[in-house]
């Protein structure tokens, strides 16, 4: 099951201006999305494995590129999450 607002955040960041704003002030952008507290904490912690089961994998990978994580670091974290990527940050 996808988390709609997490996915919407990632989807919206495809607009370059939105991505720039996010990189400059992540908290202000996150305030506009009604994420559950545990999920917001996972976003703030760049917790790839926790976010993976809650969004589409293409959006997940895109998000971490936009957020400034290197491909090598993303691969390390997604592979550490297990065969399906993951533990849940639902809550």
């Amino acid at each position, binding site marked *: 099951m*996808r988390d*709609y607002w997490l*996915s*919407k955040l990632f*989807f919206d960041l*495809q607009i*370059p201006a939105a991505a720039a704003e996010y990189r400059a002030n992540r908290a202000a952008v996150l305030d506009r999305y009604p994420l559950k507290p545990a999920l917001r904490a996972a976003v703030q912690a760049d917790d790839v494995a926790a976010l*993976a089961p809650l969004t*589409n*994998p*293409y*959006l*997940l*990978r*895109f998000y971490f590129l936009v957020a400034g994580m290197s491909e090598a670091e993303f*691969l390390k974290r*997604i*592979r550490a*999450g*297990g*065969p*399906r*990527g*993951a533990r849940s940050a639902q809550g």
Partner: protein
Amino acid sequence: MAELVGVFAASHAPLIVRGWEGLTPESRQRVTDAFAGLGKRIKAARPDVLIVVSPDHWVNFFLDNLPSICVGVGETHAGPPEPWLGAFPHRQVAGHAPLAQHLVEHAHTHGFEPSLAYQLKLDHGFCIPLWKAALDPLPAIVPVVINTVEPPFPAPQRCLDFGACIAGAVRSFPGALRVGVLGSGGLSHSIGEATMGAIDEAFDREFVRLLASGTRAAMLEFLEQRLEAAGNGTAEIRNWLTAHGAAGERGFELIHYSAMPEIYVGHGFAAWRV
């Protein structure tokens, strides 16, 4: 009546554009040769219109509304919105509204109910093969989005049948048009999941073997057993199945295949003799 003059399929790995500088000369040559082989065949077919079947990688559709199949019926389509595709030479791509509308109407009387869009942005799945095959001038494009990005996906059998439906629509279109079909995507790859970067070469080679000489039943059984485990991006082989269906499930010619972990895909190119 319109004529189906060619059926093709091609990979569309983004890294051949945004990671080009990091590829070895050998990898670049392999990619260049594969697209040249595709371009040569498309040009030889001289299509006035190409029906391009590709996923939408989250540029037109979101979880609010996610069609399984959508046909772009606009007079024009927007070029790719991805910033890294800024060098794509067309900001607007000509469509073919009459053929697209005919395809939608034909489908609705032949077992399919695709949605339609008057405004579509053509992302890298559409644009990379058109660009790298060096089609100049570009034929008019009828884009067909098949959802292979967010489950549930159309069943492989339905994709074969939808390909046949496309061919039927072309042949019943009242106009002297030369029409080609291009399936975009695949072969095996894995994106944003734990197996990211892995390529299932054995899957790819058996898939192309079955396209060349297998039965429909053997293909469907193989996909039932192997498709899901071959990586999430491998869902895009549905676009090859659609092409295969459009060609009447015969006449397959492999132009190129190589497992290319440096661009994260089993890099495949094909044409069908129609």
